[in-house]
Every structure is written in structure tokens, then in C-alpha cells.
């Protein structure tokens, strides 16, 4: 045994390190884990200026270009409003794709995923925390797009019900972020290729979601897209609330709201199933929690 000098005096353990009350379980553990993970997102969004720029400014640059294209083509002003609404929603989609979908892959690359798997809280709680934190941070950032629309492009909105807007917005976000949870499993399963695919599919999703034009313009393809992508329906529904007839909506608003609710339930279920499958696969093959594999 190696002899050595005594260590510097450190603080004692009792009572600070010992537990005096039971740890949370069940719903309280779920909520505690959700809040803890959401906190990372919220703190991060306030502390990292480059993220603020990337999430708040960059998506809106594309939006500005498309609005100016409508202007160059001499289109009526209502089309600019369509593009602005789509541009604002792009901010959320980017957050869902990269902040939710790619996150578990990043956690794995950083060697952190195994800590989540070994913790008693569920992975769904962790992902819910990411979603809540990401949504909160993105809502603030999306205001940049709203400000551009109102003060730079002078977008004119129809008289709308804030309740209807809130309802449609919440349904859209729940469906989108639940899809993000499902994507996070896929990203992790297919690794680098999923990452590149998502990167490659960013613009195609903008196209299929009709972010810069009425989804009705896509004809049958638009209907198919609306049946697959919650972003398509959500964009259309929010435009219908904000712009009325100028939105050139695809389906009646109540029907779209109902379909969005269906999407939300479906994707929450697929997220749960895919995460459970992921955990089983991870334990069986022993690969998914290891970096560079």
C-alpha cells in the first residue's frame, strides 16, 4: 500500500449527503425529470448567443427571401402573409428536427445517453423536458419572425379568435414535438445516416408542408402531405385562423383541428413504443449507448 500525506480537510458527509426523506417516484419523478431537462434548454437559450441567432434570425432570412420573391412577382399582399406564417413555423420545425430528433444521437456521441438509461426516470420524461424547454425557448425566438412580419412586411391579419389560435397552436405543437420524440429514436437507431437524411429532408419538408405557399397549390400531393406531416396541417390551420379566406385552406378548420389531435395521440404513442423498443434493443445489442457506434 502506498504511504502518502493526509488529504486536505474536506467537508464531512452527514447530514448533507445522506437522505432524510424518500426520493420522488411515479408522477413526481416524471415531473422533476421533465423540469430538470427543460431547464437545460431554457438556460441554454438565454446563455448561448449563437443559438439565439441561429434559431431566431436564420430561419427568418429564408422567409424574407420568399416574401420578396412574391413581391418581385407582383403577387397580392396576402401571399406575403402566408409566407410569414410559414416562416414563423419553420422556427419550430427546426427546433423539433435538431433540438428533439437529433438530441439522443448527440447525447450518445457525448457519452451521456447511458446515464439516462441508468437513471430511474423514464426517457419519455427526459424527452418531454426537452420538448417543453425547446418550445418555450422557440416561442420567444419566433417572435422575431412575427416582428418582421408586422413591422417590416406589414402583414395584415384577419379578425381572429385568440382561443382558436391558442387551441390550434397547442395541438400543432403537441403533434410536432411528439413526432420529434419518435424521430429521436430513429436518429439513434440509424445514427449518422439518419442525421444526414434529416439534413437532406429539411427543404423537402418545407415544400411538402407548404410553408411558403397555400398547401392547396400542391393538389393531391398536398392532401397526401397533410395526411403524413403535422406541420402541413398545423400551418394550414394556423393560417386559416389568422388570415381567414386569404389562407386558401385545405380542409375546414374543425376537421384540421381534429386531425391534429389525432396526430398528437398517434405520435405520442409511437414515441412511447419506439423509445421502449430502443431501450430493449440497446440492452440486447449493447451498441446504442456507446459512442462512435
Amino acid at each position, binding site marked *: 500500500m502506498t504511504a502518502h500525506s493526509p488529504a486536505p480537510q474536506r467537508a464531512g458527509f452527514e447530514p448533507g449527503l445522506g*437522505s432524510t*426523506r424518500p426520493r420522488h417516484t411515479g408522477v413526481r419523478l416524471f415531473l422533476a*425529470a421533465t423540469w430538470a*431537462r427543460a431547464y*437545460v434548454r431554457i438556460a441554454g437559450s438565454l446563455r448561448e448567443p449563437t443559438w439565439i441567432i441561429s434559431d431566431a434570425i436564420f430561419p427568418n432570412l429564408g422567409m424574407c427571401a420568399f416574401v420578396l420573391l412574391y413581391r418581385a412577382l407582383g403577387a397580392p399582399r396576402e401571399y406575403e402573409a402566408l409566407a410569414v406564417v410559414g416562416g414563423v413555423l419553420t422556427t419550430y420545425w427546426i427546433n423539433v428536427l435538431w433540438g428533439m430528433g437529433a438530441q439522443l444521437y448527440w447525447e450518445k456521441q457525448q457519452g451521456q445517453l447511458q446515464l439516462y*438509461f441508468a437513471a430511474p426516470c423514464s426517457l419519455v420524461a427526459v424527452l418531454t423536458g426537452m420538448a417543453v424547454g425547446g418550445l418555450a425557448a422557440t416561442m420567444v425566438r419566433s417572435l422575431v419572425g412575427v416582428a418582421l412580419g408586422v413591422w417590416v412586411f406589414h402583414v395584415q391579419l384577419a379578425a381572429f379568435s385568440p382561443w382558436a389560435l391558442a387551441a390550434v397552436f397547442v395541438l400543432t405543437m403537441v403533434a410536432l414535438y411528439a413526432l420529434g420524440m419518435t424521430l429521436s429514436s430513429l436518429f439513434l437507431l440509424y445514427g449518422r445516416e439518419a442525421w444526414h437524411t434529416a439534413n437532406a429532408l429539411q427543404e423537402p419538408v418545407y415544400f411538402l408542408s407548404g410553408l411558403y405557399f397555400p398547401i392547396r397549390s400542391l393538389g393531391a400531393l398536398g392532401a397526401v402531405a397533410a395526411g403524413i406531416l403535422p406541420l402541413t396541417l398545423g400551418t394550414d390551420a394556423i393560417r386559416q385562423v389568422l388570415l381567414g379566406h386569404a389562407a386558401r385552406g385545405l380542409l375546414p378548420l374543425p376537421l384540421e383541428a381534429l386531425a391534429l389531435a389525432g396526430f398528437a395521440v398517434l405520435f405520442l404513442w409511437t414515441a412511447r413504443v419506439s423509445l421502449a423498443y430502443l431501450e430493449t434493443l*440497446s440492452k440486447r445489442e*449493447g451498441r446504442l449507448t456507446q459512442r462512435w457506434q
Partner: protein
Amino acid sequence: MVSSSEARVPAVETRELRRVFKGSRGSPDVVALDGVDLRIEHGEVFGLLGPNGAGKTTCIKILNTLLYPTSGEARVAGHDVVRDSVEVRRRIALVSGGENSGYGILTVRECLWMFSQFYGVPSAEAGPRVNRLLAAVGLSDLAKTRINRLSTGQRQRMNFARGFVSDPEILFLDEPTLGMDVNAARELREFVTRWVRERAGRTVLLTTHYMAEADQLCDRIAIIDRGRVLACDTPAALRRSVEGGQHVELEVMGAPEGLSDVDGVAVTWGAPHPDRGTHTMKLRLPDGGRLPLLLRTLEERGVAVRGVSTRETSLEDAFIAIVGRGLDDGEAPK
């Protein structure tokens, strides 16, 4: 605290634990664990010692519910790691040395608080405990520093503190001092010793590459190689289990090449000393009394002895005797 009913069951128990990784692209399957039986009692610091690829980390992963065993059984605090993974996770924590934990954007305190919440530690307890832990690992001054501004050693200490934030019943330390400087590693070893001593019933399962670390920390050690436990006992008993005697190193000149034994004692040769023109001869004598006799024999054979050093059997000697090679050596020649 560990309840009395739980105290009766071992902290960790494995029976015929086996794990086979499927070979990819035509390569053969890899048997990482091949029928491992372990029984670790509450309050023990237990070491798993083995060369690279011995199966230590696989064993830790199974016990941490990160990996299914192919067959056999593993229980942590009486709970089956396959069927009762949630119950197991409530009682354990894992620290893997040399790995990152936490998000660079968070401060050190926030990171530890976050992990405490993943384990359901009530907020009223989490804050004070984090502060105590930071003091214990010497990071109090850096509590408000963002993780991405920490040095590697500081990050490792924070990662180490994370393992204690949930006050686990059973703590798994997988190479916890890997790459740490000598002082930091020594302080963390003392931390573990005090934690086990002061938190009654707490158990530590340690894998390490450092013999001295295992020798200093562990109540018992299992020596594992190619997925099998070759020996399991206290460090002192493991040392005793190999043939005792005295290890002698002689710096000699004029020894005939190929000399493989002296008076029936096997000789191994070290590298020649380039300046002095001497060679190092290594022998193990069954008893110290034979050394003068050996020196006389060498003198008679015209071998000039320039220096002599002796030492007692170490844990490393025991390890080499049991495994057939050193901790960092490659496969032993067949």
C-alpha cells in the same frame, strides 16, 4: 438507508452470468462473460480486476440495467436487473471515468442538481447535498462556472461527484480515476473510503486498471479474465494464494547468454543497461535464506553482481500468477 430486509440479501449477486456479443460481418461471436458468479455484501468495496477485454465493463453494464445478459441471473439489492430494472435504478449510480456528463452550457452546480432530479431527490435535499459534494471534491469555487470552461480534471471530479448526488445504495465506479493526476486520484479514493465508512451499508463495485487503487480501496477483489472469475478474495489473501517468497533483482555483468536457471531457480532477463554494460536478472526465491547461496553460486560461475534489490509478493504478482500476464499486457503466449 438500507432496510433490514434488504440487508439480508446481498448488494449484488450474479449466477452463471453469461453475455455473448454477436460477431459482425462474419467475425466470430465474442464471449464477454462466461458464467460469472459474484456475491457482494452490503457495505463492501468490491473490486473487479482484469486485463482489457476481460469483461469488467460488460458486467458493470448488465448490473446497471444497460445491457441484457445472454443467460444467467443478476440481482442488485435483491432485484432482478432484467425484470425489475426500475427498482434497480432507484438504488444505483454509475460513474465511468474519462467520460463527460452534463451539458457545457450549465454550471457545475446546475449540472449536479439536474442529475439529482433525474433520480427524484427532493429539492430541499438536492441543493445542500450538491454544495456538500462540491466541497468534498474541491469544486466549491467553481460551482457557478460553466462546464465547458472546466479543465479535463475538473470535469472528471464533477462527473465523480455526480455519482453520489442521489446517495445510491450501490455505486458502480468503472475506472473512476482514469487519466486523473496523482493527487486528484488519491483524494477521490479517500472520498470513497470515507463515504463507505460514514454511510452505513453503502456498497461500491469498482473496476480499475490500477493495482494500487484496488489494493487500497477494496475489501475483496475478483480477478476476471476472458469472462471468467479466476479468483475472488481479500487483497491479502490473493497475495498469499500465490507462491510466496522473495522477489530478487540482480544487476550483473558477465552472465552467460541463455542462462535460464541458477540452482534450479528460474531466471528472467530485463533489458541491458547501456551505460554500465550490465544486465538485470529477475528471480523469485521460495525463501529469503537462499539469497547468499545464490550469490555464491553466481560468483563461482564468474558472474559479477553489481547490485541487489528485493521485495515481497505484491497484488500485481498475484494477478500475473493467476491470469498468466500483466494487467496491460497482451494475450499470454500459449
